[in-house]
């Protein structure tokens, strides 16, 4: 079976800034691909190219068997897009928004309305159906926007940072909705800045940096690369860092690192909380004063550090470069 999404050597430059630098990507039908990277890495540009919103300088892309560059209109019938910013009309009601989208997909008046009601129900917006969107919360707008992407039941769906800007509750709610969707067999390309999100939703993750894919694999594969969980200990007295490090020998699964300025010791472990308890015992016996201690899952920063040697935050080029004019 051919992949549902195939991008080959996509290049897009904005003046001096290279947003996409020969990006290759394949997503199998019925699977979820997480595109993970910091701001400015090229995630949004990739989505915009694959959804016909932006023409690349060079490269080739096929989505749902349709050539993106040659048959954009044909493609638009088969995809759904929901962006980082909810693309809804705030002066229309929720129902009117979805109804309008249905008509613009040429579903016909009756079918558009029926589908709109169905989606409002599915996204828990029925009560707000006849209220203008300007009174909706951020999470409700996002859900409505996602519903808009689903109006024509597209086989391939693109979600660009679906939870950015949502509060933790909104985020978990959104994850539930997306998981439900994917169970129906939709192919999904999802961009995110959060490893946790990609971990929960994606079958495979492509880490992108400076407009290229720098690592590809399942969440577990990436994490094993990064080193799984780590213990972080912050001491009262930086002079005791060396002692603490000696005490940790034999506990971790990799080299422990010391941050003098923050008085912090980081040790990659695979024993979870048992390792943490053991280390705290040892440090207590050795008389090392602890101000903070914890077990931390790897973050995007850790993935980046491991893959590129620089932290995600250090990646240059801001939003403006990536999201600039076509």
């Amino acid at each position, binding site marked *: 079976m051919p992949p549902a999404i195939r991008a080959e050597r996509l290049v897009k430059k904005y003046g001096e800034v290279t947003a996409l630098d020969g990006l290759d990507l394949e997503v199998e039908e019925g699977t979820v691909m997480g595109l993970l990277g910091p701001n400015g890495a090229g995630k949004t540009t990739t989505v*915009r190219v694959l*959804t*016909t*919103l*932006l023409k690349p300088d060079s490269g080739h892309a096929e989505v749902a068997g349709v050539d993106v560059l040659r048959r954009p*209109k*044909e493609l*638009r*019938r088969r*995809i759904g*897009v929901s*962006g*980082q*910013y*909810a*693309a*809804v*009309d*705030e*002066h*229309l009601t929720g129902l*009117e928004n979805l109804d*309008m*989208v249905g*008509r*613009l*997909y*040429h579903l016909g008046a009756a079918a558009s309305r029926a589908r709109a009601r169905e989606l409002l129900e599915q996204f828990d917006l029925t009560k707000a159906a006849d209220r*203008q969107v300007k009174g909706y919360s951020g999470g409700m707008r996002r859900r409505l*926007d996602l519903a*808009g992407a689903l109006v024509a039941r597209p086989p391939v769906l693109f979600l660009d940072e679906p939870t950015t800007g949502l509060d933790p509750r909104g985020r978990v709610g959104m994850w539930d909705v997306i998981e439900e969707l994917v169970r129906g067999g939709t192919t999904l390309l999802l961009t995110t800045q959060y490893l946790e999100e990609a971990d929960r939703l994606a079958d495979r993750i492509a880490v992108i940096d400076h407009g290229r894919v720098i690592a590809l694999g399942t969440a577990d594969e990436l994490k094993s690369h990064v080193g799984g969980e780590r213990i972080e200990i912050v001491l009262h007295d930086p002079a005791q860092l060396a002692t603490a490090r000696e005490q940790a020998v034999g506990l971790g699964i990799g080299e422990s690192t010391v941050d003098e300025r923050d008085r912090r010791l980081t040790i990659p472990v695979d024993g979870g909380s048992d390792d943490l308890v053991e280390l705290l015992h040892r440090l207590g016996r050795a008389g090392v004063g602890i101000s903070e201690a914890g077990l931390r899952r790897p973050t995007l920063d850790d993935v980046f550090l491991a893959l590129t040697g620089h932290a995600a935050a250090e990646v240059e080029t801001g939003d403006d470069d990536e*999201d600039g*004019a*076509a």
Partner: protein
Amino acid sequence: MSAISEAVSDSWVITGRNLRKIKRVPDLLVFTILSPIMFVLLFAYVFGNAIGSQDTGVDYQEFLIAGIFAQTVVFGATFTGYSLAEDLQKGIIDRFRSLPMSPSSVVVGRTISDIGINVISLAVMALTGLVVGWRIRSSVLEAIGGFLLLLAFSFAISWIMASVGLLVRAPEVVNNASFIVIFPLTFIANTFVSISNLPGPLATFANWNPVSSVTQAARELFGNTDPRAPAPDVWSLQHPVLYTLIWVVIILTVFVPLSIRLYQRAASR
């Protein structure tokens, strides 16, 4: 669906969406209904009395009305650019562009709904005008022709503003920038004064200004001219309907394709 019927149906959906907004946004209601009333009243009573009868022939209030109509519909056209820039800014254009809809329909729908807004403004102004003493002294058919010409002219200006809005992308800037152009365009004309009162270069500009010709045409079609004070002897004002229509055609020929191109290129964020 064929491409044409698709384009018509999509444009209609967009038009409906835009018109719905008039009911729901109070500013817009003020803009569409109250400000035209205010213009007619202000010009009729403040200017009408202050300036008094010029050598315009007819009663100055009657002379003014067509000018106010012309100015208001031209100003109304800025709304086209403003709204498109706003749609770009708010991201809804991204949604439209990801749909399999006809590429022209967002701009076509916009300019058509703005005709709707201008129809409302004109109706309100005509009623207000009738209240303050304006009369149509021609036939019904000619009067309808006058209104249609005003609408056709503002429709053309709408397309210019559509290009501006899609290019500039910031609603406030569209408004400010277009006012700088529209104020002189609507004042250096026969809208409120007789061209014969203007100094040399301004008179020349006013003679060939399409706002003058559309105003002159409306005056003639409403029967608000005075044979004792004929229009200046230049071709544009001797054949105001034809001259206005030529402008409409030229503007549409240039700005319809340009706006649609700009729309297709516009990546809102």
